């Protein structure tokens, strides 16, 4: 289903798909691997700490991660991440619908690195 890009570092979009939703000023993004064999790589690549560190000006609050082992998915809850929410934000995308692609654009961790070595 996926078509890995040539001559480029692989990104999360190469192994997973995602959807973003909003409630008030909180965004939630769920991410699912196409192939269960990539689930460990996804878990190492996309951590709550990495999202908080990478997007400090988008995610003003805490980040929570829920792991669905049975369905090979992650659910991220991004607090204070919508400039006040759909009725307050002056962002063109006031729902944060595009936050799924913010995360899908992150580079994957090195598949050969030891667990816990999620990249910057």
């Amino acid at each position, binding site marked *: 289903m996926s078509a890995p890009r040539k001559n480029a570092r692989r990104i999360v979009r190469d192994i997973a798909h995602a959807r973003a939703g909003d409630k008030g000023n909180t965004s939630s993004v769920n991410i699912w691997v196409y192939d269960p064999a990539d689930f460990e790589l996804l878990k190492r690549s996309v951590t709550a700490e990495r999202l908080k560190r990478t997007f400090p000006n988008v995610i003003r609050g805490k980040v929570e991660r829920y792991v669905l082992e049975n*369905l090979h998915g992650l659910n991220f809850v991004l607090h204070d991440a919508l400039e006040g929410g759909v009725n307050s934000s002056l962002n*063109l995308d006031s729902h944060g619908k595009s936050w799924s692609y913010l995360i899908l654009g992150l580079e994957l961790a090195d598949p050969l690195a030891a667990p816990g070595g999620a990249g910057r």
Partner: protein
Amino acid sequence: MAKSRDHFRIGTGAGFSADRLDPALDLAKRGELDVLVMECLGERTVAFAHRDRMANPALGYNSHLERRMKVLLAPCREAGTRIITNMGAANPRAAAERTLAIARGLGLQGLRIACIEGDDVSRNVPRDTPMMDEPGTLADIDMPIVGMNAYLGAEAILPALEAGADVVIGGRLADPSMFLAPLAHRFGWSAEDTDRMGAGSLVGHLMECGMQITGGYFADPGFKDVPDLSQCGYPIAEVADDGSAVITKLPGTGGRVSTATVKEQLLYEVHDPARYLTPDVTADFSRVRVDAAGDDRVRVSGAAGRTRPTQLKVTVGFDAGFQGEAGVSYAGPGALERGRLAAQIVGERLRNVHRFNGPVRINVIGESSLFANAETPVADTQDVRLHVALRSRSKEDAETMLWEVESLLCCGPAGGGGFRGAIVPAVMTKSVLIDRQRVKPSMEMFVA
């Protein structure tokens, strides 16, 4: 009603206020549905509906209600399909009366239209009520309140179904509850059967956004391809007495139902998957199974539930004044630099000449707009657009901003064209909680 089969068949005919109508008519005609649900209310839409009602007491319901009802009432009656909708928004009574007039105009004698009220709690919520998920109270917001709506659950809808309603119209009916209520009615599920409340809420949660489970909000060419998206079909849930369901769509429609579309919707707008709060149950989606069951057929099972919350969520809408948006485009060599210069000019003019220090956002679309605050690297481009958004209690501030952006045509960088600007009313919403005993839903039947 009462089709001769052991599963219950629910379709979604709208997943948000502006959702498509023609696929809903297709479902009404060919779907052999027990129930067609139209979910048309969000945090934004209910607040705007209150503003509409304040301007005209006969309005405040979904602006597409008339066109939807004119098209759907007759085929739904012919098929024995009940309609359940929250298109009443801030004015369910006016929506029900309008629907009654449409039914009479269509000659649908005897059609039973139930109006559900009681979600408007603006007289029951004191101003010192604390916010749900942030510090402070309602009194800290220096804006006029336009409306307060409590989320009503299945128990507010059941009396209408028991009274034989063909059409159920409410205001802030909770999205999943519009699906759970007819399931509980058909199968005789008790409100204390929390696992079935959870299972029925999962069906509602999966279905409430319409095409978001049949291929909408999903396609990503080359990665997630979806066939014939312009003719995408709305979803159908075939629900069994144990609460498990098959999600599918009509043959011949565009779109796709796959384990991937179902999983993305499973956690859409969900925080803790083991603790999804609705007025009816604390639903647990953490052990849900999602299994392929044929072409465009996916089986979902394994949802559970625990005791429902003792409090109901209330959306409080405020009049936030006005929002102005305006833009000018630049293309060709140096477009990016000219767009950035335009952004700088507008910022300086608003700050230094007009002394505006309220909320304003100035972005260059093509360089960075949606992700502007994320500071992600961007590609070079030769086609950019200055975009300015401003909100103020004063309409004059918004007019000033539009004027400044338009002035760039003669006073700004070279080659700027395509000015457009608009000023729209702005609302803001906050959420609070209210004890459920203080919310008293009521039902009234209108007969055509």
